[in-house]
């Protein structure tokens, strides 16, 4: 999967989940950068990303990702759509 495509689609998912049209994610984005990104929204975000890219995160990835860059790497490796 092309990394730039992943970033574009991922930004779209973030905009929907946080209902904020101004969000553009990059590899260095973290939960501190997005106001509503708390543990509850994290669950919803993970679900929406999994659905968008047709893949599942492993349990330790869900709680272990330090920034969106790690998320992008996992998607590039395992995304199916």
């Amino acid at each position, binding site marked *: 999967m092309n990394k730039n495509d992943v970033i574009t689609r991922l930004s779209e*998912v973030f905009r*929907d*989940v946080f*209902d904020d049209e101004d969000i553009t994610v990059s590899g260095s984005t973290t939960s501190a950068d997005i106001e509503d990104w708390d543990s509850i929204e994290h*669950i*919803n975000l993970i*679900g929406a990303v999994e*659905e968008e890219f047709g893949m599942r995160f492993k*349990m330790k990835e869900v709680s272990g990702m330090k920034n969106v860059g790690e998320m992008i790497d996992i998607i590039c490796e395992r995304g199916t759509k």
Partner: protein
Amino acid sequence: MKELEFPFDNKYIMRKRKSVRKQLLSDGSLRIKKKIAVLGGSTADDVISALDLFLLNFGIEAEFYKSEYNKFYEDAVFGNPELDEFAPDLIYIHTTSRNLTMLPESPAETEEQVNLRLENQFDRFKQVWVSLVQKYGCPIIQNNFELPLFRRTGSWDGWGISGTAAFINRLNVMLSDYARHNNGFYINDINYLSSVIGLEKWHDTEAWYMYKYAMSTSVIPELSYSIACIIKSVYGKNQKVIALDLDNTLWGGIIGDDGVDGIEIGEETAVGEAYSEFQHFIKNYKNYGIILTVCSKNEEENALAGLNHPTGILRPDDFASIKASWNPKDLNLAESADELGLLPESFVFVDDNPAECAIVNAQLPAVHTVHAESVGKAMYTLSRGGFFEITSVSEDDLKRSDMYAENAKRISQQKKFENYTDYLLSLDMHGEIKDFTPVYLQRITQLTNKSNQFNLTTKRYTQQEMEQVCAMPDRIRLYGRLADKFGDNGIVSVVIGRCEGDTLHVELWLMSCRVLKRDMEFAMLDELVSQCRDRNISKIMGYYYKTPKNNMVSQLFGAFGFDLVEQSENGDSVWKLNITGYENKNKVIKVNEKENIYE
């Protein structure tokens, strides 16, 4: 909003819920406000956020209280000041098989030991319900229990002494028994829901380990929808009518082209068998008080011929209104609504033609449409759509279809009289107007919660609140029941007034639209005045609170002879009547003359 109607896209709802919520809140519709406490045995955040959306779409704006994680038992049994202060209108207990603490462990256990486990497990939940009813006296919705995904011993798990599935099935029966014997206690059947979705899809063990969600987050909207349907039913927002197309919906083929002998209905062919099952499925809705109508593009003569097909199941007199003409279907449907005195939003329209569904959708957006692509799909959508979620069955529900059929006869008789009063007198009407009695309380509450048009204050009451009103000495309560030579209309009107010194304040005044123009409202007023005199009350204050649906009664107090005291900009008004010189207004209904008015 179409996105929130069944069948919906779970993933879309979860992903877009924030913007969907904003859209709903800004659509300008008026909603009733309710406080809902969710006591969870597992994480409930997403359950609540999806429930919030579905309720908004059903016209209910909810404020939520959420118990701390897995504190449902403590909150209920030991009390919680925060919950007390919240004062819930309704409580949903979000527990699942993950909260079962007394599951059998070993096949070495005796039947008595397992029975004891079952009783203890049931009692733990019963303690929660009893305590909540004592504290809050409000409706309670309780999940039953879903089957687990895993089983050690194959089918044995479903019947063996220590089987988990066997234990859960027995527990579910105990819950159902309890629900049948306790008003205001409702089961949310997640056992059905998880089965229909598929246990493999329902369960997500990782969601439990990571977030303590007791089911996959992807099925949460389905769960929330199921809860929302029960809540909407409790607050009287169910649909009431199924409007049916005929050709290729109730039978195979086109009656106008194929003739009575050419259409398929009955056991001879597979297609005929499908339509027989469908007609039977639909006909049984009548037993629950759901009204059936026909909405078809056809010659009326052909429509009737089709409904009289020798192997058909639905007959012309099963329908309260038959509209078969070449008019657009939205017009036919609106005509039926007028005839029955119901709003378009009470209708579910079923048609095999997607274009007809689209037209009705566009012209009458409040009508729910079911595209009957096949018989199976139509029955499935009716099953899952939640249009006719039943939370109680009153005596009136059992007779409703007959009542509407009787109304049709009254209308045809009306045409024979030139003078309307003569017509009313010819009906030989008898009324029963009395204080509430326990046997009628369920129907009184039901009518109170679903009357929208002839309703001056649109105040809603739960069964428990109505019971409290019954115990208040300062209230005058009247129910009105009306029968005539064509049949009994059952309880059709409810009035509640609060006495304060020499004044009565009318808190509730409503009437079923099926007895409009029968002077029943005058009979109610006469009785109210008479009871006021008994209590030395000299004036009655009437209140009209405007809603989008109750315009028909905006001038009712004026017609009663009240004086307008105050007219607010928002359409509300306050009225006053001095009853000293009041003379009875009803001349056509004989009130409280017969012991039993339908004999």
